[in-house]
């Protein structure tokens, strides 16, 4: 009996090993490792499906991270990726051009910018004062102390510093210079300040950023905030329109002058700057200038599968790829832009004459 049972366990275990093993192997394929911003998950999943259909010998491996984390995976943790695609194209020059690989070359020296997005105010039907919310009073509602406003940590997440930009721009747009202070600034243990000089608003984020009141809820990424919103633990948050729609949440569109989604308003956006004031770690003092939301992607210089990466980028920029983005509410940037086009691999150069 005992021997029988032992035999059964052995058979079961072998089944598990064989089954899991089978799904893992298969025909010889090359793997394309894509580190993607969280807000690209939905369109990239569709791109992956279509791309793999057309290129059956390529296996696309998507790894979602916050944009900053995606880059740090490569530059700090030494992960070899074939494509890095982030929600803020300015992060690539800031963090990848300026960091060198062990052999002395930078991790990347170009980036392609092809899609945009915009910020909206997300809420649910149970959010406080949702019934009186409109495009003229939203900033006053999120400033009320009994309303819980959530946003991502601007020190580590693009939506976070973009939220501050939107609030800074809203201050000028609605002619309410205390808007940023009233909505978020005054609820931190160390002051988060906005200084207006020559028409440019500079928002300084202190090193210690801890809310002192339950009016504010900070998280590391918007995924957590959306869970808090859906469970009614926060009333409002500002997030990408595409993500909010994908999550089936209610949202209020913000005026183009503040939503960072209109490339035609780039000049207006340029009037706000978010700077991190890290006194102790003076070597890193990131400054984020107000820019339209533009996604950026690059092939790191230590990529293993450059051929497949080039094909994937061509696919993203092509009609099929852009149709997917369109359906995911991440409109195409017309025309796509390339920073440092002279450094592009040959096959991509033709796209940016």
């Amino acid at each position, binding site marked *: 009996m005992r021997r029988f049972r032992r035999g059964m366990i052995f058979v079961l275990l072998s089944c598990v090993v064989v089954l899991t093993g089978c799904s893992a192997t298969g025909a010889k394929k090359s793997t394309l490792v894509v580190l993607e911003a969280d807000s690209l998950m939905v369109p990239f999943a569709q791109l992956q499906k279509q791309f793999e259909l057309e290129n059956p010998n390529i296996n696309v491996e998507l790894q979602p991270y*916050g944009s*900053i*984390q995606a880059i*740090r995976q490569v530059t*700090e*943790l030494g992960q070899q990726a074939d494509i890095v695609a982030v929600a803020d194209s300015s992060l690539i020059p800031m963090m990848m051009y300026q960091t060198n690989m062990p052999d002395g070359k930078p991790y990347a020296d170009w980036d392609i910018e092809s899609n945009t997005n915009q910020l909206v105010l997300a809420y649910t039907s*149970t959010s406080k004062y949702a019934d009186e919310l409109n495009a003229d009073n939203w900033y006053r509602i999120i400033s009320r102390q009994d309303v819980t406003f959530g946003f991502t*940590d601007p*020190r*580590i*997440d693009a939506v976070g510093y973009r939220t501050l930009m939107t609030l800074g721009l809203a201050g000028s747009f609605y002619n309410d210079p205390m808007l940023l202070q009233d909505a978020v600034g005054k609820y931190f243990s160390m002051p988060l300040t906005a200084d207006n000089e020559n028409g440019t608003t500079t928002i300084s984020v202190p090193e*210690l950023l*801890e*809310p002192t009141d*339950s009016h504010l*809820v*900070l*998280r*590391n990424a918007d*995924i*957590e905030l959306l*869970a*808090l919103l859906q*469970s*009614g*633990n926060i009333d409002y948050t500002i997030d990408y329109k595409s993500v909010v729609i994908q999550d089936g949440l209610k949202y209020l569109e913000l005026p183009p002058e503040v939503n960072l989604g209109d490339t035609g308003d780039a000049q207006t956006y340029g009037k706000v700057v978010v700077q*991190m004031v*890290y006194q102790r*770690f003076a070597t*890193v003092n990131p400054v984020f200038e107000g820019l339209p939301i533009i996604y950026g992607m690059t092939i790191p210089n230590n990529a293993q599968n450059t051929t497949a990466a080039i094909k994937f980028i061509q696919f993203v920029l092509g009609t099929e790829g852009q149709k997917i983005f369109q359906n995911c509410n991440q409109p195409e940037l017309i025309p796509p832009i390339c920073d440092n086009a002279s450094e592009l691999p040959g096959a991509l150069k033709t796209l940016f004459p």
Partner: protein
Amino acid sequence: MQVIRKIIRTASSFWGRHRLLAVFSVLSLLIVLFVLVPLFKIVFLSNKTALWQALQDTTVLKSILLTLFAALITTVVGFLLGVPLAFILARHNFPLKGVLEGLIDLPIVVPHTAAGIALLFVFGRNYLLGKWFNSIGIQFVDSLAGIIIGMLFVSVPFLINAAKDGFRKVDVRLENVARTLGASPWQAFRRVTFPLARRSILTGTLMMWARGISEFGAVIILTYFPMVTSILIYQRFESYGLTQAIPVAALLVIICAIIFIGFRLFLQREKKLD
């Protein structure tokens, strides 16, 4: 020549006598290295100045103390609620007991982000338990209570399982003897069963506490501030890069090493006294 032959003979007779020990030692060495090398690497990757800085950084110290404290409270709660369950599971049979035992292990398997979200939908301010706790002034978002339920959910199975095994090893006849000698069920539990199962329970308690300290995924959903150390390490890494994150990790490893080694030594002494 003779010497070599002698050496070979000694070696082969040693091999003959201690084959099991030799094979096991080699295998053990592999797993010990696997665990220790990365830990040492974390400690030695950060230079002394960086470690010293971390040690003087009040944010870091506060966060480490908070983490140790929250995990401690979690363990006390887990102990009070988990040990009775372990006793029932070890001593009594009831319908669907196997199912219950399987379900209790689930928090170990469930991705911890999912665990955090699940807790949010139970302890959130719009849900029954959340509302009730809110009425007595306890909130679970951005609070110590949030850290505790996050840690409790993912770590309590370790204590329940260890305590259950401990109670199972205690001979029921000893309890029965105590009962025939006039002890009440409470007395039998307190004087006989619990002391005999104590070592397993203590080990489980330690494991639970340790698991609590390391938790990230479930806690970050519920509570970003006050910031536990796992989240602080992550935030430092994101904002400043590895050079600022590693000293914090190193400090946590060193402090936990001291506590854990101390605890194990204490357990060993206990065993000798037994």
